[in-house]
């Protein structure tokens, strides 16, 4: 079935890239608001509230990736939005809003863990949901995300004046007659909607970076809202493309690769801007040079530390020793027959073919603990010496061993005597068994010439030694 074409990297990475584009579109825009409002961590906080909603839903028996779970997390997010909208307009800003956002984050995160602990299943599902994985998006998810974000985007486009006004200066907006609490609530609700949606596929990390980095770069280049947005979009597209490519080429986890690359780009842009904007470019370059030297020193410090830690015994190892009993169990020395006995029956067949020493075979036969082993050894002895083999096979047949080895021994003895004995050991009555065994003994006796002890020649055997 080589008809299946190999899956190309393009096909594998196409959907993640489209998802990135969709995310860049809305997050670069919302990020500008977030930066201007100075509520950087609001998305982490809302995402955590959304996760709390999913978890609570889960406790009520709703699967984390179902529509019900989405509605649960969305409702929770709206509650969070209300909290943020109300707390922003507190008259005296003695407590910065960032503190409330951080608190909400910590509380929601702790509650998720507490709630999960009471749920019978699914802790792992929630964990996966928070980290997200953009590599696994499917077409439907990208499409619904696109539709949802275009909806939010249109809403913001229609009321752009109001949204921008309240973001830039709440006090001024209030003086203009805008209901700040209402529009703040609408802002956070739409924001929360987007976050709930995107965190599910992209994970908290990626969403945070998509939100903040384009806005930071845009804001450091220009003050114009429109230009900032265009810079964010352009940069976001480029970074997603290169980040996904790097993730594929270097075989890195996708989300973190894009995040790390975004960080790198931010650093580069910052350095370039620093050089371009400074009064003396030479001095700026000098500063960067000093920075590089410091960086080098830091790297060397950690290299040295690493070496040091490895020199001192025990400093780089797991403080809990590996359990003693786990150490190489196969180290025990075992006798040759025990090792042979341990093989499965097919392996024994192979191994026994190489054994040519009659004395050793017979010795093994007497030491072997299982009938299966005895059978294979007796068969090999019969190959080398029919007389000796016949005696061993007979003793196996007369033993209380399992049916299979005994019936095989009977078969071999039939071949040796050229007289197939017909006996079903599974079904046979003791009398039938005794009769056949008598015939076998007679044959073996005739064949070997020496009567087995206790069995007078020619006479039928009184009692069967087997059950």
């Amino acid at each position, binding site marked *: *079935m*080589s008809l*299946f074409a*190999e*899956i190309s*990297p393009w096909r*594998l*990475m196409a959907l993640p890239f489209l998802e990135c584009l969709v995310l860049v579109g809305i997050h670069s825009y919302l990020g500008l608001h977030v930066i201007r409002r100075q509520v950087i961590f609001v998305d982490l906080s809302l995402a955590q509230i959304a996760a709390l909603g999913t978890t609570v839903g889960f406790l009520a028996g709703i699967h984390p*990736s179902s529509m019900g779970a989405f509605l649960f997390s969305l409702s929770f997010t709206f509650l969070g939005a209300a909290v943020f909208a109300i707390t922003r307009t507190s008259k005296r800003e003695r407590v910065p809003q960032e503190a409330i956002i951080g608190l909400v984050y910590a509380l929601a995160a702790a509650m998720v863990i507490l709630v999960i*602990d009471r749920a*019978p*299943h*699914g*802790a*792992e*599902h929630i964990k*996966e949901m928070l980290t997200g*994985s953009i*590599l*696994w998006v*499917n077409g439907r998810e990208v499409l619904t995300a696109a539709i949802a974000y275009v909806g939010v985007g249109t809403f913001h486009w229609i009321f752009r004046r109001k949204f921008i006004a309240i973001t830039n200066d709440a006090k001024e907006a209030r003086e203009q007659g805008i209901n700040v609490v209402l529009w703040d609530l609408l802002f956070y609700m739409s924001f929360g909607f987007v976050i709930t949606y995107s965190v599910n596929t992209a994970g908290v990390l990626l969403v945070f970076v998509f939100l903040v980095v384009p806005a930071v770069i845009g804001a450091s280049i220009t003050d114009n809202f429109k230009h900032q947005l265009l810079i964010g979009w352009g940069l976001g597209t480029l970074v997603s493309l290169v980040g996904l490519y790097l*993730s*594929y080429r270097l*075989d*890195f*986890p*996708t989300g973190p690769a894009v995040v790390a690359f975004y960080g790198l780009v931010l650093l580069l842009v910052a350095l370039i801007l620093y050089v371009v904007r400074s009064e003396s470019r030479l001095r700026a370059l000098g500063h960067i040079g000093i920075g590089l030297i410091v960086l080098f020193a830091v790297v060397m410090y950690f290299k040295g530390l690493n070496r040091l830690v490895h020199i001192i015994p025990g400093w780089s190892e797991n403080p*809990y*020793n*590996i*359990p*003693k*009993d*786990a150490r*190489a*169990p196969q180290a025990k020395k075992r006798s040759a027959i025990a090792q042979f006995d*341990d*093989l*499965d*029956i*097919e*392996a024994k067949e192979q191994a026994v073919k190489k054994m040519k020493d009659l004395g050793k075979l017979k010795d093994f036969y007497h030491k072997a603990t*299982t*009938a*299966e082993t005895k059978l294979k050894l007796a068969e090999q002895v019969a190959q080398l010496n029919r007389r000796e083999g016949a005696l061993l096979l007979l003793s196996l047949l007369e033993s209380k*061993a*399992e*049916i*299979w080895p005994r*019936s095989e021994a009977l078969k071999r003895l039939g071949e040796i005597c050229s007289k197939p004995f017909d006996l*079903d050991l*599974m079904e046979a009555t003791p009398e039938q068994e005794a009769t056949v065994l008598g015939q076998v003994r007679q044959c073996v006796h005739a064949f070997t010439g020496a009567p087995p002890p206790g069995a007078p020649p020619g006479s039928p055997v009184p009692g069967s030694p087997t059950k």
Partner: protein
Amino acid sequence: MSSRYRINVARWSVGLLILAASSALGAPMAHAKLYVVASNPTFANIAEYVGGNLLKVDYITKEDEDPHFVRPKPSFAVMLSKADALVVTGLDLELWAPSLIDKSMNAKIREGQVGYIAVHDGIRLLEIPRSGSRASGGVHLFGNPHIYNGPMNAKIIATNIAIGLCKVSQANCEAFKAGAQRFHNMIDQRMFGPKLLKLFGSATLTRLTEAGKLIPFLRDRNYRGEPLVNMLGGWGKKAAPLWGLKLVTYHKNWIYFTRSFGLDVIQEVEPKPSIPPSPQSVRRLINTMSKETIKVILAANFYDESKVRMICQRVSAQPAIVAFSVHGKPGINNYFQLMDHWLNVLLEAYRRTGAIK
């Protein structure tokens, strides 16, 4: 000097009083049930078969939790502090165990003490790595520690639990040994069926199963003209259509099971054990699956189902998502139901792909 002496006397007498009181309380306790804590619900279930109503059994990792990790909770330390015996794999699966035992302050169940029962002893470990570098993922240094999914291993686990419990409570030793033997017989009957078992006995069939040769051996030979495979009953018969079929698993935790039933694991979804798949590895997996026409992915239900389903969609394969442990799903209340569950889900998945009827 004298005041300090007096305080010491006071302390001693209080201590002695407590000791006397507790031993008075403890005396009837000695006849009560032994309290056994197992690292996972499946070991706990096997222990119940061994000890019956002589034991009270608890377990630490939840029913459908990844056995590699455990959330530290005070209740675990409390549980262990009261335990007479702790049943663990004893390899490097339960890396959380030593710190938990430390926390419990229970000297009886420390490694090397009688209450510490490591059940891996005597099991032929598979997949022993050549190098023990963590760079190749969550490698288990001593071989694959997910031992209970091989039905033959379950018998050894029961024996080891019985031996361990004998050391803890010698008075009940005979009962534990009898319990383990009962469990052995039940497993053998369920695995091979009465007819084949009568013909071969347990040892031969166990070795063949462990070596992954059961069905080929039985197909090759006959007893008085009847192919031996026709005499196979139980799980062996049920799973016979699966023999030789190819399979992808999520984590490297199925080897003892797949070896027993002749399933051929071509690859894992995780590129390295316990490391989530990257784009390249997904691509390789998809390519292998379409090239080798692998139609089923087997995954425990604590891994992300959407990843498994996404890959299945791409190559039109069937996901077989199962509970990994006893109580991992409603209706799976013992080891036998767990094994039934695995086989049923796999058979159903292969049926849907059309690989078997």
